[in-house]
């Protein structure tokens, strides 16, 4: 485990999370959330939780983002906040 990498990833995760809830376009938010998930996934690999990371890659970054996009596709992509 490399603590510098760890900190950088953690910072990126926080930035992605903050960005995901701030942007007004829901598609952007979802993509940022996908990035968030992917960074999480890396973070976990880096922490040695390979199974969790694998699941996260399959679910968080993949299926979950697809669900969000599908739902936004069905509803509206604008957001007031």
């Amino acid at each position, binding site marked *: 485990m490399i603590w510098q990498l760890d900190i950088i990833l953690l910072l990126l995760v926080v930035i992605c999370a903050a960005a995901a809830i701030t942007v007004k376009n829901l598609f952007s938010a*979802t993509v940022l959330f996908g990035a968030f998930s992917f960074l999480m996934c890396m973070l976990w690999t880096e922490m040695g939780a390979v199974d*969790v990371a694998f699941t996260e890659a399959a679910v968080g970054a993949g299926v979950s983002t697809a669900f969000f996009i599908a739902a936004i596709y069905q509803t509206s992509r604008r957001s007031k906040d």
Partner: protein
Amino acid sequence: MEFIISKYNYWMYIVLMMIGFYAMIAKKNLVKKLLGLNIFQWAIILFYVSIGVKKGGATIPIIAGGHGEMVHAVSAAQYLNPLPHVLMLTAIVVGVSTTGVALALIILIYRRFGTVEEDEILEALK
């Protein structure tokens, strides 16, 4: 100082959790709320995974050479704690399921009210 540095992972998870929590309460857009909820859950998962970490040469929780027939003695310090990982696999699944149901509800709400903004829905209800 020592004590802040030694637990930086926990501090970051707390920040993350606060972001998610804030989004869940403050945001008016239902999808945003849901994103906040996901961030919140993922923060907790980060916390759990952090519990499992062992410094000092521990490796991923898969026994090296385990496919061979011989079983050699293993000491606990060699491998990471697998239990939090297991718990978090379950938590991720729960998170995805919740997200799925929530998205279905959002679609239903959109069908009825034509919007996913909470204040507009409340307006429409009056």
